[in-house]
């Protein structure tokens, strides 16, 4: 990797010169010594194995103090011959939000002030599929599904052509060889360009230190995935990188009571996702933007 991609400090210096500094100030102004130390840490892709080990050990120690739990932080790399794809059968989704909370629990998202979710379930009037503007995600009926509505869960679509990655001025977010778009939370400066660039609202921002109760922590984490985040970091769905690289279904797939959620390797002809693409009516959100998402919605037949 050439150094050029990862000159974060230079970027910030330029920023302050160009008076745009307001954007990055939240991070710099609230900087503790620990944060400063993290700030000097290298970009994940540039670390040697040894440096990774040191960083992991430091993090494990910090999480132990913060959450009273021994964490397992994986840095497992992408598997060869693998390109992940996701399938979601719209005709089966009932909008029950089991996926939303299974995701939050698995991925250690902030529970309150502010609550962060990586999945939003949109409710749309039937026959109104195209118009996402007309959707709402605070619906709260006694039971679901409701007559006359369909539900459209949205999360990071892991585009082959991700606008967020292009928007990031310092390469703190990138696409892994298996297609997962990840964020190096330590490298992220919180400028939120990526959030603005994502047409799916797939990314969320830690406006404050995340609130994650100790007894709700999931200690099995990946460095580029569900490890606890910090103030000013951007985060989003990683297809449960910590699970899928070990061959396990993502937490949302496991949680779905209707079996609407499917996952697999696009390069494996026997995978669920290939079966879907070859036999079902599939579509992707906002195909007009050429994001080439790897998140396939489909219908029966």
């Amino acid at each position: 990797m050439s150094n050029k991609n990862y000159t974060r400090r230079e970027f910030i210096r330029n920023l302050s010169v160009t008076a745009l500094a307001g954007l990055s100030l939240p991070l710099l102004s609230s900087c503790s010594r620990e944060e400063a130390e993290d700030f000097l840490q290298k970009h994940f892709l540039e670390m040697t194995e040894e440096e990774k080990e040191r960083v992991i050990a430091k993090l494990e120690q910090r999480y132990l103090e913060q959450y009273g739990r021994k964490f397992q932080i994986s840095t497992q790399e992408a598997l060869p011959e693998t390109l992940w794809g996701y399938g979601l059968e719209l005709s089966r989704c009932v909008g029950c939000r089991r996926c939303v909370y299974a995701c939050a629990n698995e991925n250690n998202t902030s529970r309150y002030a502010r609550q962060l979710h990586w999945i939003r379930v949109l409710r749309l009037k039937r026959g109104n599929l195209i118009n996402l503007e007309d959707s709402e995600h605070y619906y709260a009926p006694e039971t679901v599904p409701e007559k006359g509505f369909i539900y459209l869960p949205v999360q990071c679509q892991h585009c082959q052509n991700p606008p967020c990655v292009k928007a990031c001025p310092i390469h703190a977010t990138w696409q892994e060889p298996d297609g997962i778009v990840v964020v190096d939370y330590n490298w992220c400066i919180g400028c939120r360009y990526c959030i603005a660039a994502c047409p799916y609202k797939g990314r969320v921002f830690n406006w404050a230190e995340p609130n994650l109760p100790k007894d709700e922590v999931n200690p099995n984490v990946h460095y580029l995935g569900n490890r606890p985040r910090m103030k000013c970091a951007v985060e989003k769905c990683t297809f449960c990188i910590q699970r899928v690289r070990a061959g396990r279904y993502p937490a949302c797939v496991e949680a779905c009571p209707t079996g609407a959620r499917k996952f697999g390797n696009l390069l494996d002809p026997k995978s669920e996702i290939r079966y879907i693409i070859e036999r079902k009516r599939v579509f992707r959100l906002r195909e007009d933007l050429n994001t080439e998402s790897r998140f396939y919605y489909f219908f029966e037949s």
Partner: protein
Amino acid sequence: MTLKSLRMRTTLSALAIILLTISTFSSLAVGAGQEFPVPPPPFTEGIFPCSNCHASMEVNRKKRELKEEHTKIRMHHAETMRWCLDCHDAKNRDKLRLYNGELVNFTESHRLCGECHGNLYRDWRAGIHGKRTGYFMGTGKRTYLLCAHCHDPHEPKFKLIVPEPPPFRPTDRRNVK
């Protein structure tokens, strides 16, 4: 051929269109048990083995309203065309009965459903209709949910469920420090 099976033939002919799909799945008859590992069937506690009661009972093949036992069971599943003993074996109540008379365990009830719901059964085996859990790859265990885990075989329409709460709105007290 007994009168009973003759009657069944005629009633079932109404389902002929659905049943056309059966032949496609004959290859499945062997070894289905190992091929589709499943969690335990979702029985009411204490009801299995059924033979605890039924072994000592006379078989009553008459279609009727049950008054003594199983009174909560409502048939809303092509009920006009069939009766309990089309699916449950009359003599061995611990088994299900396929159309051709073969007896299968409750851990293979998907084979029974598959006889009439061929397309969905094909999707189910590929992990598309219904659901597989665990490891999709490697040596870890992967299990299939039975049709019966999601559909009550007697009243198979997917039940309404209570949704989890909506996310906090940005202005929600719980969302503000």
